[in-house]
């Protein structure tokens, strides 16, 4: 403290002597270091008062009493600053806790991309923050059917993560990859509507592929429309669906549709993070994705996913604003 007083006195009397900008600059840097050492504002006033008294021995009483008053009122700013230190420590604890939670969540939702004989599957899912609010669920437990669910929770953070656990749990208990997509959505919708907060919704696109007939059956609940590329006509079709988001109406009904996947065809499933770029109205993201997919259709499904991600990232200056998920099923 004695050292601090001496240094402060030096800087202060230099400044009073010549009012140089450099002494104010030095003074501010000095105070920044003091703040890091938990010196409080009332202590600074006290140091200031003492320094002035030592330099000028004829200070009026009114001025000195004024400093006493200042010390008294500054105590409450000092308390605020200390409260901030405590809150910072608490915040740090929370940060560490969230890191562990993220790790667990990622393990909980981990899912291997299936490698069936007759189709090629690729996936990329990049979270915006630490926890991913998108989730891809694969099922391929018998030889005939393979199912993929691409989901996006409306909402962020821990509630979204817990909600996602619930979706995974629901999908797992449905057990069979051969369930009808519309049936899967109806069951999931009831579970979510019943048990999750009113402000929490899930969009989901469910696709079941029959490896023996090459029929792809799909259904969607308020999800970004998938893209179907027909190799024969060399054109894209939106797989649109009017299904409500999961979790809104308990008795919502979902329809499903079939399509024949021929050699050279592929389907792109994605979340809205791939197409939503609020600040870039000039881009038509879906068109860009079509162009990218078309230009790279000779690559594997996985490589196509990665090209789409890296190109869109570049186009948007690496400022993605949502979780980003693309799944490609390629015949």
């Amino acid at each position, binding site marked *: 403290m004695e050292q601090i007083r001496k240094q402060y006195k030096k800087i202060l009397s230099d400044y009073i002597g010549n009012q140089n900008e450099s002494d104010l600059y030095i003074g501010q840097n000095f105070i920044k270091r003091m703040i890091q050492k938990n010196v*409080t504002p*009332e*202590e600074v006033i*006290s140091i200031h*008062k003492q320094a002035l008294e030592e330099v000028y021995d004829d200070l009026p009483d009114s001025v000195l009493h004024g400093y*006493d008053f200042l*010390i*008294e009122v500054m*105590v*409450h700013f000092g*308390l*605020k600053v*200390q*409260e901030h230190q*405590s*809150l910072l420590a*608490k915040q740090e604890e929370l940060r560490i806790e969230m890191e562990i939670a993220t790790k667990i969540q990622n393990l909980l939702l981990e899912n291997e991309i299936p490698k069936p004989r007759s189709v090629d599957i690729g996936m990329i899912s990049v979270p915006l923050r630490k926890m991913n609010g998108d989730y891809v669920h694969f099922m391929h437990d018998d030889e005939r059917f393979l199912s993929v669910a691409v989901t996006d929770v409306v909402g962020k953070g821990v509630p979204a993560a817990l909600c996602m656990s619930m979706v995974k749990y629901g999908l797992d208990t449905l057990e069979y990859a051969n369930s009808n997509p519309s049936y899967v959505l109806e069951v999931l919708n009831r579970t979510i509507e019943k048990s999750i907060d009113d402000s929490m919704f899930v969009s989901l696109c469910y696709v079941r592929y029959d490896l023996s007939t090459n029929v792809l059956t799909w259904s969607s609940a308020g999800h970004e429309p998938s893209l179907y590329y027909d190799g024969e006509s060399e054109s894209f079709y939106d797989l649109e669906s009017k299904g409500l988001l999961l979790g809104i109406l308990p008795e919502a009904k979902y329809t499903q549709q079939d399509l024949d996947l021929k050699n050279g065809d592929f389907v792109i499933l994605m979340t809205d993070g791939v197409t939503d770029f609020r600040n870039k109205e000039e881009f038509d993201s879906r068109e860009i994705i079509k162009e990218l997919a078309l230009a790279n259709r000779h690559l594997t499904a996985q490589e196509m996913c990665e090209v789409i991600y890296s190109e869109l990232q570049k186009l948007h200056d690496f400022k993605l604003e949502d979780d980003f998920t693309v799944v490609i099923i390629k015949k």
Partner: protein
Amino acid sequence: MREARVVEIVTELDIVTARKLGRDEAKEIGFNDVDQSRITTAIGELAKNILLYAHAGKIVIEEVEENGLKGIAISSIDKGQGMKDVHKVLEDDYSSTSAGAGLPAVKRLVDLIEIESRVGQGTTIKVVKWLVRV
């Protein structure tokens, strides 16, 4: 060592009396200007709490000495409702509606705080600040 000084807290004026006694005592013991202000602020917060939650009570101010260390002890004693969860009142209330100060502030202003409270029987809070901070 001088004997303990007691201030009955019944009106806001008593808060000022307790603060004044505490400030004089702190000065006497040898606390510097900043610590005098902090001790006085703590006394003020304790006394205000008495008025707010128990309507009446007293503040006891005394010099203490332990292992050759001098200090000031302030006790706040009331026969009010008492508190169910003494841990909670010491935790910062970070909600936006917080009035600030209160016991978390008192805790920061002193070196030691002890609370004894029984529901329906009252609360005793004792704080100590050492002349050389421990």
